């Protein structure tokens, strides 16, 4: 957020608040990117697990709960993984939605701030 060339555009409290908001959104955007990556990974892991489960001949598999591997019947593990998948998928959807909304709000603020300060303000990264 650097202003260039000694230009004398008046910065009002409202502008400052918009800049703050933009900063917050930008922060959240980066957090969301990490969270989405993590959520995608756990989704893939669950997907892998359920695929492996289909291939296995064993009736009882070891299922990690907390720190221990419990002996659980294949059917039950299948049900549990399905349930976990549902949770992570919903979570992922929620995160994606939030990301879309953050991106939209940032675009809106960019319009306002660039509209006022032109190239005296830089809202791009790097």
């Amino acid at each position, binding site marked *: 957020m650097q202003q260039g060339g000694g230009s004398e555009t008046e910065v009002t*409290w409202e502008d400052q608040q918009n800049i703050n908001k933009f900063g917050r959104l930008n922060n959240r955007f980066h957090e969301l990117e990490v969270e989405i990556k993590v959520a995608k990974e756990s989704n893939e892991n669950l997907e892998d697990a359920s695929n492996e489960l289909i291939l296995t001949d064993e009736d009882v598999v070891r299922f990690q709960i907390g720190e*221990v*591997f*419990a002996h659980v019947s294949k059917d039950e593990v299948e049900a549990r993984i399905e349930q976990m998948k549902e949770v992570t998928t919903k979570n992922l959807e929620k995160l994606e939605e939030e990301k879309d909304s953050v991106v939209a709000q940032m675009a809106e603020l960019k319009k306002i701030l660039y509209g006022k300060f032109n190239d005296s303000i830089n809202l791009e990264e790097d």
Partner: protein
Amino acid sequence: MASPSATTIASPSSSGSGITERRGIPGAQFVEDVQTYLNQIGLDVTSALAVLQERLQQYKLVEMKLLAQQRDLQAKIPDIEKCLDVVATLQAKKGTGEALVADFEVAEGIYSRASIEDSDSVCLWLGANVMLEYSCEEATALLQKNLDNAKASLEVLVADLQFLRDQVTITQVTIARVFNWDVHQRRMRLSPAVKDS
């Protein structure tokens, strides 16, 4: 946190920046007009910038502290959820007459097998070398309470961080504006002389 030196707090009359403090984090002052601001704090541009930079460093320090706390809490929450999961599994097995067979780690990389039969209670590690036996219901209640507390603390912490980052942004913008104002002043002073060149 170190209390800010007296010079960094100008009288709060100059703007409606709202909150002046949040949980020990002092609010940054929004500057309406650079000239007025400098007159008010009675410093020249160089010292004013130094004061603001120092302020910024203080904010950064607090931010690092808060981020560490946030990481701790974010690690704690899944831990508690795992514990709840185990207790729920034990509870589900109770009364079915079946034992819960589990492989558990005795030492790193070495596992043994346990058969847990119809257990009514679990022991929770409370910390400080204390472990207490609870019924499954009580354990769930306690863990749930811990989970709720951790989530609530995280929420407060996230709000603190947001407030802090707003103050950082305000300070950064102020630094840029004081700097630009100075450049502008110099140029104005010079411009009549260089106009023709």
